């Protein structure tokens, strides 16, 4: 929401983990929540959890503390992947300041990844934003499955599908093992706070 309250000196940045259903968005947040020290993390909120883990969205507030007199918070959101929640996905993108696009390495999800990225582009447009403007990071998740018998996509293939011009920083990850999870988080956090600071503080 980039809710900057100059009187209270608070900066809130909203980062959304986007991607097809079951690609591992919630798992990213759960990993972060469980592996991070208590100093910076707030309570994780998982809303309307039933069978399908994220029916609504998950929220994990993180706190950077006071910097330059500003209280800086980064809130991580996930969106539900299923098509029936299309309008929730749109809603969660309202006021977004940064996006992590989580792609699924499973071969069977190839089309879903592409579809979801397109969906993201459309939804951002509806909020008057674009993927060219807003900070974004791509995460190729479930890389641990590459060594398993399950058919997976190669990194080259995924890059070609999702990041052909190398526009966005991208990371290989395994959200269940934790590889790449914090790398992704740090990168998107840095890009986002920089973006928010430039955009909002400069004008003031």
């Amino acid at each position, binding site marked *: *929401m980039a*809710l900057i309250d100059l009187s209270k000196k*608070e900066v*809130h940045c909203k980062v959304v983990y986007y991607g097809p259903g079951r690609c591992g968005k*919630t*798992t990213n947040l*759960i*990993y972060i*929540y*469980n*592996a*991070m*020290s*208590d*100093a*910076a993390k*707030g*309570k*994780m*909120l*998982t*809303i*309307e*959890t039933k069978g399908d*883990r994220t029916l*609504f969205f998950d*929220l994990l*507030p*993180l706190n*950077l*503390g006071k*910097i*330059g*007199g*500003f209280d*800086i*918070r980064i*809130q991580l959101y996930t969106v539900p992947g299923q098509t*029936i*929640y299309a*309008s*929730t996905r749109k*809603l969660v993108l309202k*006021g977004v300041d940064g996006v992590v696009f989580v792609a699924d390495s499973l071969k069977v999800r190839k089309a879903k990844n592409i579809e979801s990225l397109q969906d993201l582009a459309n939804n951002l447009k509806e909020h008057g934003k674009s993927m060219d403007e807003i900070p974004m990071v791509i995460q190729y998740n479930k890389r641990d499955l590459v060594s398993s018998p399950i058919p997976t996509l190669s990194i080259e293939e995924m890059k070609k599908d999702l990041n052909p011009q190398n526009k966005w920083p991208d990371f290989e990850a395994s*959200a*269940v*093992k*934790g590889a790449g999870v*914090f790398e992704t*988080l*740090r990168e998107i*956090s*840095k890009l986002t*706070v*920089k973006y928010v*600071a*430039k955009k909002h*503080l*400069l004008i*003031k």
Partner: protein
Amino acid sequence: MNTSENSIEQLTQEMENAIDSLFTPTKKIEIDPLTNEIKAENNTQRTGTSPSASAAPEIHDSIPPSGLFDQNVTKLPLSLQNALRELYQGLMTIEWDMAVSHIQKARRLLDGLSGNLTADQIGLTQHVMTQMADILAALEAIPLNQVPSHSPKLLLNLFEVLEQVLTSDNMTPEKTIAMAAPLSQELNNFFEEIERIQQDTPFQLEQGAAAGTTSPGLASAAAIARDLHRPLPEQSIPSLSLVPETEPPVAPKPVTPAAPEAPPFLQEAVAKHTMQLSRWIDRLNALEKILAGVSGMEKLLAFHRQLKQEMAAQGQILAQAIHRPMAPVAPDVRTEAPEPAQPACPWRMLARTEWWGKRIAFPQEYIAFEGKLPWGRGKQLLSKDSLPLSMLKKWPWSGIRSLLTGSLSSLEDSQLKTMVMPILVSQEPPPSIIITEPSVLLLWNPETSKGCVILADSPSTPFKTDAWTWEDAPTKPFFAGILRKNDDAIYVLSQDIFS
């Protein structure tokens, strides 16, 4: 603050440093993709500070600090915060999926929220809350495919006002109305649209169902709404009259001694079971109403009706079997001379409470409502001689029917809201201790279709009468008899109270 390029540069550098140092893992964990269980690499760390046992921590006591939710809300008591958040989620759910179940849930949440408000807050928010409740009720009353597209937004806007009202200082009801004023045009449009829809489609459902044009699930809300004003067809099923028809007699007539009797524990078990059966039937009735309005559900509806009939029949069999030895006759206590021989209590089970400094008892199945009135209204009753049933409602818009049990709850809200029940007043001098907030007991006799109200000193409890001796009390007004055990006496109400 200095907002030059340089200071921004410096600020972002500091933020990056903070991110590097804070956003790092402090422990190595692994998540099981199958069970989602979290395993710490080093097992001794499992008892660490974070809730590592559950993969999807469902922590519902924290509020999103900002963004989707007003920050000031954190000033409010936690229970109210939670109620607000739940309502917010309910409204968001409607926003993303307009379904009857979601509308109904939101109505319940709105009701629930009201329970968390102080008297002052109720006064302040009543205006907005009423609007929200009216919108939800309207949405439930029209076919879903005709719901005005701006309704979810309108609800969310009203929610914002509600939140503002609750978190602002120095609020007055007038200020609330002023806050909601920008929405008034839209509200007017909304209700005009609803009215038009209701006029346009009064019989759309039946026609649609007959012609097979209404898609399943679309019009159930409209059906429920219309059912409030029109009885359902096929009301011949003896379901609701089960309890009154089969319960023990209501006159102090002794049990026929010659008849063989089932053991008391068995009688009690069967009595409980028949009660439960009738409760289930009540629920099936409610379900039936919903199903009756949805095309495509005819089979399920028929199945439910069948089930209900079977349950009712089963209840009859049980009740007859257990009560036959008790030979219910002679319902009029006033014309019946007391038996010279030692009479027995005509009821196996009664409910008892304290009233007017006395212990009194009555058949449990007469209880149509029991509890305190909302907003401490019970106090007002102490100086009144009747209770309009509408006083049972917490909110002007909530129904009465859902508050009631037994056969009175089979009446429609439109009937119930016009009903006034007399408050029973003893002819004896008032007791020395006066309870300030009485427990209100609404008794209803389905046979005479009459009821009365007892302002009791305590909640009622059921008890078995077999350990007590019975003494007819024909001269006392209100009482059919007295149950005695040692020095204790319980006055059993007679049917006179319903006249």
